[in-house]
């Protein structure tokens, strides 16, 4: 037995790991390094990249469209994450307290099964100014029609809510999984003491769920910053620049204007933002965990 355990499997291991390692090096590590390198070059895809130092970054700092894109993206993330997390928490707690049957979780998860493109198109239709059922209902209750995806003030909240529709069930199930780790006896004790559902939510659920909520937030915030599909399908960044989120601006710069160097520099900026956010949230998670331990 010991002999088998101790045996060195290096050659076999290399064979087993080779395809994944090749994939990892070629399609993850190398592109990451190359993306950083390209951000210091002028590159139009047709001629080889020319090193141009910090030019792209200088341009970025002075580019009002970039700053606007960053602002629009953050605005989107805030609406998307706040609404989604509150709703998901509500749904998860209801599922926990009312019924834990699989069919209910299945229904809530259904929107997650379709692509962002499908979700975007369905809501493009539902919210259509002329014929959309959404605007018909708004009219029936006596309000004015809203050009949800064509009005600069409405477009980002609308896009954010479309993506809430698609992702809220998934987020709710993540939180629901977290809720299962809270011992039922705590609730029983609470009930014996005559605590209301609301008190138990505040005193038991929320504090014990906090580390898991923080983890869910890291995952969803990082995902939310990468918003692209919905904007690309519905508004293409418009009207004017009011829905030009960072990732769409990067795409447009690379594939619309063939400025791959500048597009790469903005990608690096987005990467840095994401790393900082992940790091901060991770610190918070750790702090919470040590509090509860």
């Amino acid at each position: 037995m010991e002999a088998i355990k101790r045996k060195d499997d290096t050659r076999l291991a290399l064979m087993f790991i080779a395809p994944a390692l090749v994939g990892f090096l070629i399609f993850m590590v190398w592109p990451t390094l190359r993306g950083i390198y390209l951000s210091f070059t002028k590159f139009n895809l047709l001629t080889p990249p020319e090193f141009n130092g910090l030019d792209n970054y200088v341009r970025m700092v002075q580019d009002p469209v970039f700053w606007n894109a960053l602002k629009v993206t953050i605005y989107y993330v805030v609406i998307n994450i706040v609404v989604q997390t509150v709703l998901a928490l509500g749904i998860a707690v209801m599922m926990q307290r009312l019924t834990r049957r699989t069919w209910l979780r299945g229904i809530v998860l259904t929107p997650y099964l379709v692509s962002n493109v499908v979700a975007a198109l369905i809501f493009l239709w539902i919210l259509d100014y002329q014929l959309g059922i959404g605007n018909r209902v708004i009219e029936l209750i006596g309000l004015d029609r809203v050009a949800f995806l064509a009005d600069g003030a409405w477009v980002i909240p609308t896009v954010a809510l479309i993506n809430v529709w698609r992702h809220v069930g998934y987020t709710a199930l993540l939180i629901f999984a977290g809720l299962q780790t809270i011992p039922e006896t705590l609730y029983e004790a609470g009930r014996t003491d005559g605590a209301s559902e609301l008190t138990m939510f505040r005193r038991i659920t929320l504090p014990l769920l906090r580390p898991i909520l923080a983890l869910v937030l890291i995952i969803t915030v990082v995902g939310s910053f990468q918003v692209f599909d919905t904007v690309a399908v519905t508004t293409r960044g418009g009207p004017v620049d009011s829905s030009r989120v960072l990732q769409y601006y990067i795409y447009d710069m690379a594939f619309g204007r063939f400025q791959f160097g500048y597009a790469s520099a903005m990608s690096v900026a987005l990467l840095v933002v994401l790393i900082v956010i992940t790091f901060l949230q991770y610190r918070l998670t750790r702090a919470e965990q040590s509090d509860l331990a």
Partner: protein
Amino acid sequence: MATTTTQPVAVPAVVVAEKPPKPGFNFGRALAWFFMILVILASIFPFYWMLRTALSSNNALYAGSDSLLPVDASWGGFERVFGLQTGQEAIDAGGAGQPINFWHYLANSVIVSTLVTAGQVFFSAMAAYAFARLQWRHREKVFAFFLAGLMIPAIFTLLPNFVLIKQLGLIDTLLGISLPTMLMTPFAVFFLRQFFLGISREVEEAALVEGASKVRVFFQLIMPMSAAPLATLGILTYITSWNDYFWPLMVSYTDRSRVLTVALGVFKSQTPQTGPDWSGLMAATLVAALPMLVLFLFFAKRIVNSIGFSGIK
């Protein structure tokens, strides 16, 4: 003998008590159910509306915009989506009249998702086995390196990967779309390694003592024993790949490699002069969404239970 001691291993899933706490009727509970019913309606209604519109004829939608049933029911939307109407017929029915054939895109999506899923699950399983069970130098360091990959947002590698795929001459090919995720994702390796670590060593060692090679142990013991998590990972990978839009949008330029998500975007942008072909567009959307909804119908329990913290670290 050894086999009797092993428990069937399942994905570390959420343990769900079927019986909820059951107090009598109260106002709070009624309110909670009301909220849940709203959530259910909000989840389902958009799908119904897609179906209802897809089965309406486009020209009638203007008059019957608030009818809850299909208006002037017809298959016209689907006929346009599958290229069964002639250009003039399509234009008369409110379509764009450009030839479009979703069968082709459907086939492309199936090929890409199948390539990605089969490759990613298989190669990740091999790597995960090497990380979980084989003894070799620097194993933990290499694994930590892989894990660091989880930190890189996929979106950052897209531009440089596009440049790479272009240099490889794979632009506008299905292989070019599949390749970057066909060999591994750090998540898949991590997910399967966690599972392999949980498999009892006894069975494996019994087989080794009887003279089986580690390669055979992997293929004939580990893989069959891990059918459940492999299937779960496979289904999730298939769905992710099917729904991907950004990467295929970069790589595919023509019909040759166009997948459904990208085709939907193109279909949407071909708006006719008279106004959008909503019934055609919803029919196309339905065609793109239906395969995943059917898959969900069959594997709902598995998919629902796979969502938890087992896989996320």
